[in-house]
């Protein structure tokens, strides 16, 4: 049983057959149900997942007819006009459909009628079945008014007025009925009777966009292959424009005469459908392809796509136009195609003082944050990773060094600044140890070094060179 909450009121959204046998039904208060059945299993309802599952079911039903429309919350319409003969008859189709649904564990009722409204009513209020052509009016007339897909409040009003059946409603004079119950009721009545046309909103199956070209004569020259990639990309982008999508990943499959194939894959940092740009990303990789005796077929597949709205994509490089933030996605794609996407990145500040962790790699097009490094702390421009040991001589134990020997070269220190104490951060996984004392040193030759002692001098701290200042 699942539960949905409206305000403070928690009601049953759906109940499993076992719960229904115990007398629970949708719309009942949870407190009442729990009073009736103390060991009740209660889950929160997830309408989004239900809707997704319904769409999935509708997609499966495309096997019966190309025109299928999900009807939330719990129905699917299948327009079987012209499809029933494939199963022999409408009865056979219905049987086959219900049988397969049952195998999958889906409890379902199905009805076939002239109009979607009639089928909806019959499936829910008469247990399904087939209404012969032209008999919708009689079939629906005997059903309760709730079968008209109208709001429960109107149903309650009708019941108060003694209108129980659809037939009674249909028999009422039209004008007073519309005035009393609204236009909506009249429309639903006509749709159920098959007098009014009801358009279905069919589900369009999502296919992977691809474009293919087969050659009468195999090709092998690089220039020719590049040309074909350009043409394929243009064709693919035209398809994508219609769908309002952009490419995130493209696969190029080259089939050789000797049945061997090559496969190239490129990714883009942002959805795009700029054909010349996409084709260019392949250019460099194509040079690695061995065409053998020739390539006879090429397929370009947009294996990963994302929605991309219509925007002006051509206004680049016009003099005088300065966009506030420049679109770097093409450059990032091109660089990524050359060296690999993981090697194109930005460095984002991390709130820490431990030098090795002050920057974090983020994707090059990740949103820019306002975070910066502390501006008042002097930091080197180059860091030695790992730090290199130096021999340092200080006048007094806790003084900055007066002389350092690094890589067998002596550097006489003329000025020094420090110490700046940086403590290990246990919350970031540092082992608990003494903190480092950093000093900035300037030597007589003008070199500026960043050195640290890994423990106080009294505890035998050693000296390390960690970076170079400007």
């Amino acid at each position, binding site marked *: 049983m699942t539960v949905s909450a409206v305000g403070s009121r928690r009601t049953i959204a759906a109940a499993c057959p076992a719960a229904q046998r115990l007398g629970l039904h949708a719309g009942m208060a949870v407190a009442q149900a729990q009073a009736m059945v103390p060991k009740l299993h209660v889950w929160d309802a997830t309408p989004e997942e239900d809707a997704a599952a319904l769409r999935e079911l509708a997609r499966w039903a495309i096997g019966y007819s190309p025109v299928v429309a999900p009807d939330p919350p719990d129905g699917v319409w299948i327009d079987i006009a012209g499809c029933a003969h494939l199963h022999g008859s409408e009865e056979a189709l219905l049987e086959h459909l219900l049988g397969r649904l049952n195998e999958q564990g889906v409890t379902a009722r199905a009805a076939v009628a002239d109009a979607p409204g009639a089928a909806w009513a019959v499936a829910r209020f008469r247990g399904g079945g087939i209404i012969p052509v032209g008999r919708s009016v009689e079939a629906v007339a005997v059903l309760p008014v709730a079968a008209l897909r109208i709001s429960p409040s109107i149903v309650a009003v009708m019941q108060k007025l003694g209108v129980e059946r659809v037939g009674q409603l249909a028999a009422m004079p039209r004008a007073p009925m519309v005035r009393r119950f609204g236009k909506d009721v009249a429309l639903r009545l006509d749709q159920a009777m098959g007098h009014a046309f009801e358009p279905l909103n069919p589900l369009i199956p999502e296919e992977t966009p691809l474009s293919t070209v087969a050659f009468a004569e195999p090709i092998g020259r690089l220039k020719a292959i590049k040309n074909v990639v350009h043409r394929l990309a243009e064709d693919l982008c035209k398809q994508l424009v219609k769908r309002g999508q952009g490419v995130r990943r493209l696969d190029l499959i080259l089939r050789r005469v000797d049945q061997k194939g090559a496969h190239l894959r490129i990714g883009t940092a942002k959805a795009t459908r700029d054909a010349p740009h996409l084709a260019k990303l392949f250019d460099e990789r194509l040079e690695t392809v061995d065409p053998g005796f020739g390539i006879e077929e090429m397929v370009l597949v947009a294996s990963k796509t994302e929605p991309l709205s219509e925007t002006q994509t051509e206004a*680049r*490089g016009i003099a005088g136009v300065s*966009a506030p933030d*420049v*679109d*770097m996605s*093409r*450059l*990032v794609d*091109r*660089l990524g195609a*050359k*060296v690999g996407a993981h*090697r*194109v*990145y*930005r*460095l*984002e*500040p991390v709130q820490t003082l431990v*030098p090795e962790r*002050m*920057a974090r790699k983020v994707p*090059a097009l990740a949103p*820019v*944050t306002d*975070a*910066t*490094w502390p*501006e008042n702390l*002097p*930091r*080197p*421009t*180059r*860091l*030695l*990773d790992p730090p290199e040991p130096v021999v340092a001589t200080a006048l007094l134990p806790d003084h900055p060094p007066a002389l350092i020997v690094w890589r067998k*070269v002596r*550097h006489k220190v*003329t*000025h*020094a*600044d420090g110490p700046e104490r940086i403590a290990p951060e246990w919350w970031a996984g540092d082992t608990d140890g003494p903190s480092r004392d950093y000093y*900035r040193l*300037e*030597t*007589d*030759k*003008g*070199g*500026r*070094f960043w050195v640290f002692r890994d423990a106080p001098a009294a505890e035998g701290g050693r000296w390390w060179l960690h*970076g*170079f*200042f*400007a």
Partner: protein
Amino acid sequence: MTRHLLRSASSPPAASPAVAELRRQIERLEGSAQVRPPLPFGIAAVDRHLPGGGLARGALHEVVEAGPAAEFAGSATLFAAGIAARLKGPVLWCLTRRDLFAPGLALAGLAPGRVIYVEGGRDRDVLPLVEEGLRERGLAAVVGEVTRLSLLASRRLQLAAEASGVTALLLRRWWTVAEKDVTALPSAAVTRWRIAPAASEPAPAPGLGRVQWQVDLMRCRGGAPCSWILEACDETGRLAVPASLARRPDSAALRRAVTR
């Protein structure tokens, strides 16, 4: 130090209008006539010396480092970062080794959000990355860390920079003495700078004073080599004339009096 100052004080010969017109015509013929105002350093002595009154945009510039620990190019890095910081727009930084420390660059005004890093595996992989960056008009600058740069490759980069208007800054790195010699070979770059750390000004209290560099303009197309003592980039990427040098009495008048 005095020698440097004296040399920089001598102004280039005043160009006559006819010569200026001819220069313009040549520029137009060479196709580099797009109006790109150069980037001034904001220091009169330096800007007066550079043709056009500043660092040319849409051109290739080389930066090398001299002094102790020159192979780590700590000063040259900040010099390049300072120039990139004063240009407007994102910056592409092409590197091979992971010794760059981004918080240090931010201190020259190069905000972390502005820099995209790309790693090339080897030295020769970096040049194509730099060129790819130079073809992207939206960038402010491309910084490349390279060792070898042939005349042909540098010409290619220079043309790419001219076409797009993106400024290219090449940090010449070296790790062995042989590689150091390679960085001294000629290239098609418009300027070559050598940055060497100089002893900082003595501070009144113990500690480090403001960082100073000896900035050498070793090669400059349309200009003469020169050298200055300058204060390193501040938090907006600007260099400055050290206070002690700026406030000295003008020695030129005295010198003239002596020679007379």
